[in-house]
């Protein structure tokens, strides 16, 4: 459903993403992990059509993003890490507008908007301006927008930031249901517990390159200890040791 082939992005002499190839089939939740600055967001933005790859291809639902951008994007839902929402629109207006961009129009759109607002527990805020929303509410509103047009693939960049435990549980449940209905989800996250709990497979990116890929069990095996928590596996694979110096500095 989502596939990238040898995706490269360079900024001058700096290579942010270096030959990333991913494949997320329908119904899979694919975790995309890596330390800060590893290239997760750059990769996701290239798949979303916000950044032009220096080289490589992105295929969404069988459509090449470069050749058929509208068809590819029509199948995609995108939840960015720092979402933009028109502050002076109400939640309902924003969703209707967003739906229109994806061709969701006509008499049924009102019902669909209310369905999504209800699902993400925002019904009573439908007629309130977005500027009065908390960060978590804005995050949920963006998720409403991303799922409104029934996408076949969803890109999520740091979904749990700013969400309270109830919100986080809701989002996990929604993602699981969506995946069970055949939606492919590519999710970047720093919350390793979430990745461990939800993802069918995980790719770990470091300095722009995929260094490991597989199920949680596969990653444990790669790290050399089948009983490790994902945090320990992650640190071993990405070289995140060196904590012994803290005592000296503190």
């Amino acid at each position, binding site marked *: 459903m989502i596939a990238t082939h040898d995706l490269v992005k360079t*900024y*001058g002499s700096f290579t942010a993403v270096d030959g990333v190839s991913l494949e997320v089939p329908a119904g899979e939740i694919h975790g995309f992990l890596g330390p800060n600055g590893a290239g997760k967001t750059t990769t996701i*933005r290239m798949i*979303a*059509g*916000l*950044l*032009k790859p220096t080289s490589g291809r992105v295929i969404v639902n069988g459509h090449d993003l470069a050749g058929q*951008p*509208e*068809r*590819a*994007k*029509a199948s*995609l839902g*995108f939840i*960015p890490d720092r*979402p*933009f*929402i*028109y*502050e*002076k*629109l*109400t939640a309902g*207006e*924003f969703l209707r*507008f*967003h739906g*229109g*961009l*994806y*061709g969701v*129009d006509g008499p049924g759109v009102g019902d669909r908007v209310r369905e999504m607002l209800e699902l993400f527990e925002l019904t009573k805020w439908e007629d309130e*301006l977005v500027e009065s929303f908390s960060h978590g509410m804005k995050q949920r509103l963006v998720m409403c927008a991303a799922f409104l047009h029934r996408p076949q693939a969803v890109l999520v960049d740091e979904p749990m930031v700013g969400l309270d435990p109830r919100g986080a549980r809701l989002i996990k449940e929604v993602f699981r249901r969506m995946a069970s209905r055949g939606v492919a989800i590519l999710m970047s996250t720093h919350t390793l517990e979430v990745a461990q709990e939800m993802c069918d497979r995980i790719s770990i990116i470091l300095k722009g390159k995929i260094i490991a890929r597989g199920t949680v069990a596969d990653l444990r095996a790669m790290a050399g200890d089948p009983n490790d928590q994902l945090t320990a596996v992650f640190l071993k694979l990405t070289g995140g040791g060196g904590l012994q110096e803290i005592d000296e500095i503190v």
Partner: protein
Amino acid sequence: MPQPFPYLLLPSIWASRNRAHRRERGDLLRALLFGGIAALVAVAIFVAAFWIAWQLADYAELGDYLLRIGLSWLFLSFLSFLAFSGVVTALSTFFLSDDMRLLLAAPIAAHRLFHARFLRTLAHSSWMVIVFLAPLLLGIGLARCAPLSFYGVALLTIVPFSIIPVALGTAATLVLVNVFPARRARDILMLMGLLFAASIVILLRYIRPERLLRVESLPDITAFFATLQSPVTPLLPSFWAGETLFASLRGGRDLLHFGALWTTALMLVVVVGAAYERWHFAGFSNAQEARKARFTRLHALDRAAERLPLSTVRRHLLIKDLKMFLRDVSQWSQLLLLLALMLVYLYNFRVLDLERIPYMSGIVKNVYAFVNLGMAGFVMATVAVRFVFPGVSSEGAAFWIIRSAPISMRDFLWSKFWIGLVPVLLLSEVLTVAANELLGVDPFLKVVAAIAIVFMSFALVGLATGLGARYPRFAADNASQVAGSFGGIAFMVIAVLFVLVTIALLGWPSSVYLFHQTRRIPLDGMRQAQIAASFAAATFVSLAAWWFGMRTGVRALE
């Protein structure tokens, strides 16, 4: 079924409607103030245009000729303004606007996105020109008893006339963003600002309007008209627009130039649209790169600050504010534009030869000295609202650092005050002293004006700093938004009143003094007391405004 491109403009329309329905504090005051000023300006433009067109009617063919050249000049000025404005606006609407991330992720055809964004760029770039032109053309039309069709033709002329330079500006932005690294986009903008300001100065120098004041140079009047006409080339859309309107004003039709306007405008939209479909994504993608910090090595600034007799806290606040200002090109470009306008203003005084006005030159000069003081006051108020008032708000989301640090709010605000005072005082003092020197005003007035500027600077900067702390807008995207907020408007109202009161309190005793001095009449004790009281009142008003502003600000922060 894809929505037509105007659908993409819906958020702006809905947002405007929501703003109107859900008024915030100060919205009404702002609307009344801006509406009132706009109405006054429109009436003034209408009256001036009507009067000039009416007077020119008395000079038969010469009047027609001057009107024709005047229209071409007017459109030529707007052409350059619109092209520059198009470049600046397109950079924002096509590349830097936040909602582009939302729209580009959606399945929207490139040509639809271009048309929607271009319409937005056109509206943002040209509304000021249209607002200016509407009363002007109405005034000309009514004065010359133009047929009704003139107004229709005017509308149909302004539209393509605006499209052409904005499309060219948009194309220039596309080239710039693709050719240069995107992080330099704002640097380029600053360069454009400088070029635009320089072009204004050159333009003014080119026509040398001061020659009209020289009676003995009247035989050169034909050379003057030749100079006026020389930049009006038939190849520019400004000429086409002027000719179309002039023909229509006299009840005729100039289909050639009208056709040239529309065909060029439509052709440009098609060509620039195609270029955008091809190169916009690459340019937008570049624009996502982090901007490189400018002036990253400012060791000289650090060293200079260390020599100042300041506490550690104040020194670090000063360094931080200066570095942030130097790295924000939008601040710089506006300040440079203002400096360029100041140069034009001073240049006018240099070439204004008032000695040639018989008998009155002394009085005119001294009146000018007060006009100049008033102008300096308004310049100070404008600079203060744009650069000093947002001082506290500019801390933005980082204000928690100041709040949680062991710094008193009094220290913090006074630091903001001094940082604002030095440039404002220097700027306005140079403006006033230089203008008075160039005019050759009475030495007494030179001293009064120079001292008055010191007091006015303290008062206006104190008011701006204090009210900026009283009405902060930490969530604002830029300083202009803060300046346009309720607090900013309130400051401008108070500042204008303050300047007017000060000018009145200084003007009356100065005129009495000069009157007695010119006629060599000694001032009696009563008059001297009245003069002293008036100057004391002006001093008191300044000190009170300064004290009130800072006290309000410190209290609000505490």
